[in-house]
């Protein structure tokens, strides 16, 4: 398991130290004026067409190179759990995934996989969502659905309160970088389905989470699977009827990026209308709990938010 999961061991620590040293060294090459006075935002909110908006949002929070190093093994987790197209807003827009994949490759990623454990029949999901076709046009077999329990590995959740262990996709466990690219949508059980809820697509036994307290279990899982980068697709928002729809689809044409999954989710909750009303982030229990447990910050008014339009 790589950094986003566990307390780091010595070897990883040294590796990271090495990485940081490189980074520090590299920063000497950058003209000092560029860094000074330009503290990067914790959260980037960009409106506009998907492709430039994704690029801009990631650039604003430090660029893809902050997360993906040359040779990194990257897993991107979209929402592609439903056999429907982008217009229904239950799956991430394929252009978001395409842009992220290309950015990762430009950053020199060793391997990029787009993975989800879907609810609906796997082939239909990967096809109809449009994610399969765009990814596989870039590289054959890049986007995959994983459902066979043998492709998951039992993993302890040391910080778990009710969910103490789960089965995680082996490819995720062996990845260096995890990028969450959820579709912004309502969820009849969890309130919203964003980056934290989306981590349920990387495990095998989701049923148990419903028998536990769903919100608490989501936070437990988020303590294990903490994406390095979160890019929320709010180009369309499924405001009602989520997660599968059909429901009311808003089109705010917005992309939200952050390294903090709680902050990204919290901002998304507060920024859009859900079932015709406005809510604050703390009205979603799993966001509230995650904040309390220090997994991220929901106090978005205290965060530095960069906004842009492209």
């Amino acid at each position, binding site marked *: 398991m790589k950094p986003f999961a566990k307390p780091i061991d010595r070897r990883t620590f040294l590796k990271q130290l090495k990485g940081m040293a490189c980074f520090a060294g590299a920063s000497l090459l950058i003209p000092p004026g560029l860094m000074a006075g330009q503290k990067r935002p914790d959260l980037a909110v960009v409106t506009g067409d998907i492709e430039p908006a994704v690029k801009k949002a990631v650039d604003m929070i430090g660029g893809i190179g902050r997360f993906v190093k040359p040779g990194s093994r990257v897993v991107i987790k979209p929402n592609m759990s439903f056999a429907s197209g982008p217009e229904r807003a239950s799956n991430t827009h394929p252009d978001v995934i395409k842009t992220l994949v290309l950015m990762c490759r430009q950053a020199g990623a060793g391997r990029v996989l787009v993975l989800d454990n879907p609810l609906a*029949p796997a082939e239909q999901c990967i096809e109809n969502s449009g994610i399969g076709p765009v990814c596989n046009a870039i590289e054959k077999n890049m986007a995959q659905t994983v459902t066979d329990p043998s492709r998951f590995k039992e993993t302890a959740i040391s910080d778990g309160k009710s969910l103490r262990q789960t089965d995680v996709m082996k490819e995720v466990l062996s990845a260096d970088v995890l990028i969450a690219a959820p579709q912004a949508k309502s969820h009849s059980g969890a309130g919203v389905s964003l980056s934290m809820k989306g981590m349920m697509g990387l495990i095998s036994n989701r049923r148990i989470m419903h028998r536990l307290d769903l919100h608490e279990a989501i936070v437990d899982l988020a303590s294990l699977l903490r994406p390095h980068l979160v890019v929320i697709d709010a180009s369309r928002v499924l405001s009602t009827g989520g*997660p599968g729809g*059909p*429901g009311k689809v808003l089109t705010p044409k917005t992309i939200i990026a952050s390294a903090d999954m709680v902050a990204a989710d919290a901002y998304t909750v507060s920024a859009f209308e859900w*079932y015709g009303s406005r809510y604050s982030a703390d009205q979603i229990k799993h966001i509230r709990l995650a904040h309390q447990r220090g997994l991220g910050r929901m106090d978005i008014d205290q965060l530095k938010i960069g906004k842009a339009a492209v």
Partner: protein
Amino acid sequence: MRFRRLARAASLGIFLMLLAAAGHLAASDLYLRMDPALIGAAALAMRTLVWIWLPAVIVIATALLFGRIFCGYICPMGITIDATDKCFAPRRKKNKTAHAPSLRLKYYILAFMAGSALFGVTFVYWAAPLSLVTRFYSLVFYPVLYMVSDKAVSAFYPIASHLDLRTLMFLEINPPRFATGFFVLLFFAAVFAAVKISPRFWCRYLCPSGAILALASKKPLFRRQVNSECNQCGLCANKCPMAAINPDAPETTRHEECIACMQCRQICPQNAVAFSAGLATDLQKAESISPVRRQVLLYGLAGAGTAAVALTGLKVVAGDESQKGTVRHTRLIRPPGALPEPDFLAACVRCGQCMAACPTNTLQPVWFDAGLLGLFSPAVTPRRKYCDPKCTACGQVCPTGAIAQIPKSERTWAKIGTAVIYRQQCLAWEYKKSCMVCDEVCPYDALEFEKRPDLPYPVPHVLEDRCAGCGHCEHACPVYNQAAIVVTPMNALRLSPGQSFEYTAKSRGFTLQLAPGEAKQPPAVSGYPGGGLPDTAPHGNKGMAPGFDEGG
């Protein structure tokens, strides 16, 4: 000989390929439609003839000309038995011909089947070779094969992942699982073990299709002919797997028993045996062992009598399942397009082709859930997996039309049942947990949720006029072992051939569309869609979006 081996291997290979491709290939039920007894009994029981059964007629016609070449070269049951005979055959010095009178048994079995079919009851699945062998390969052979391959692929995963062989890494085989597999296995173990009594025991003594072809091949044009070189050594009679050669007069042949395997020609030291066309007048015919007419009648009556008794069983459906007095297993869900139950049971030959074709493995053979008459008939088992609302595989492969072919455009309207919520099991209703998995997976959007003052989380309701009974909800329900939402056969559409599902469904007020674009009207801030249950929440969360709370 080599030709024969090749021909048989090719036939079995094609059969297995068609079976593996069931649901993907148009003619994957071709072999079933070639089986004379299977088609004959279905036609009798259904009292109908359709052109798709032409292959069976052609097979009977070939018997008139060439004898039982179907048995010798094409029938996968015969080929399978030949193969296992080779493995298990005892060394016998002399071919027992004492059983010769039992050669009649197959005619009586046929008479029994026909007698019951006259009553609209089918027992053909106990004996028709293609029904049996299809079931064997689809319910026993393939599942084992897939399971073993799945284990192999999983074992290879670490290497595949290391080498980044994506296709292998993400190859998921999902081996099917079936009920009744062990019974089928035991049945076939008995069939295979019968080689201890005689080779091709099944084909010789029991096969009703063999009986039909025997009746047609008393005087075939192409047949075994023995010339004057024959020195009556009797080697051929000893070798003949079908007891078609009389050891006392090996130059004569019981043509109706002969499957033209030509082993007699190969073994003959005198080269006296040939298979060629001959005039009817030159027939070197051994005294045939024909069915006794009185016995045929008797067995026919026995079949009719058994059918009559079976029809008085408690679980028999006389007309419609909705009729008063119908006693059924509470959750017996037939596949989409299944004819009305009595017609369905008359037509279904229990071959298992639909189950082999079912991509989600939800179609399972039933034991006695549908009474004695329903043995091995297919039923949807949503807990195993849902019935894909776009899939028409089972209807496409059904050789008799017991499951009708539904046009793709009508498929979503073919309602197979209605989901019901057991509130005392439901996480949201009873255990006050946040769970809307049923809503999450429902492709018809047939679930709605209601926020109640007495419960912390929204609770589900089924909109029965939108529910097609696909079983996504029952499959995904996190409660075990009894799911809290289950599909019952209520309001299943069981239509006669030619009727429109869409028209019928609409006339009953159902809206059964996957309808991605069409959204339920989002509720105004107060209240939740439909349900007719007033939102009486006294406190502030009246109208709050589902899953949200007061915050804090």
